[in-house]
């Protein structure tokens, strides 16, 4: 069975600074990987996904993530954050023959002026 570990529970960052959110996964088979964002009092919204092909994936709102199979990681980055990026971010994984979507515990990003 797959599992996801998000290494940082909270990440404070200043506006216009870069941010990186770390995600590691565990699985014995090939996986698909996702990052979701949850703004206050809203549902989860997909930021980006890795299914196959290029290991660098670009998503919405200027976010990107890199899949590293050898390190079983899928870290999320943004070169310059805005106040509006304040939210909770979840890494998720599904094994390609399972379709069960498992989430990490989440990383709260707080952007300060």
């Amino acid at each position, binding site marked *: 069975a797959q599992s*996801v570990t998000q290494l940082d529970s909270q990440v404070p960052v200043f506006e216009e600074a870069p941010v990186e959110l770390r995600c590691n996964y565990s699985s014995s088979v090939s996986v698909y990987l996702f990052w*979701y964002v949850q703004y206050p009092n*809203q*549902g989860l919204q997909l930021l980006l996904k890795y*299914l196959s092909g290029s290991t660098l994936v670009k998503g919405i709102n200027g976010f990107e993530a890199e899949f590293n199979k050898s390190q079983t990681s899928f870290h999320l980055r943004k070169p310059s954050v805005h106040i509006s990026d304040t939210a909770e971010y*979840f890494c998720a994984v599904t094994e390609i023959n399972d*379709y*069960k979507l498992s*989430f990490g515990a*989440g990383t709260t990003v707080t952007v300060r002026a």
Partner: protein
Amino acid sequence: EAGVAQSPRYKIIEKRQSVAFWCNPISGHATLYWYQQILGQGPKLLIQFQNNGVVDDSQLPKDRFSAERLKGVDSTLKIQPAKLEDSAVYLCASSPREDRMNTEAFFGQGTRLTVV
């Protein structure tokens, strides 16, 4: 395209009472999920339907939780009787899943349950 609809948005009940949540997935989506998200944690899968059949309910506390998806469209999740630890946001999501490459799940806004 309309999104995943959930109701109610908020519910407060006393322990040992029963409660039901409703979900209307995106039209045509074969897969429907119910997740429980306790404050400060990531969503935990409770049950997954493929059309009107259950694919995975291994983490559903079956002594008090039940779910159904009539005609492979709408779904209801019920808790009876509720416990204090059931306080959480209950998220419904749907996914086309007909194509293995189309694996994105679309989430509703959730129902926030408070058990007092």
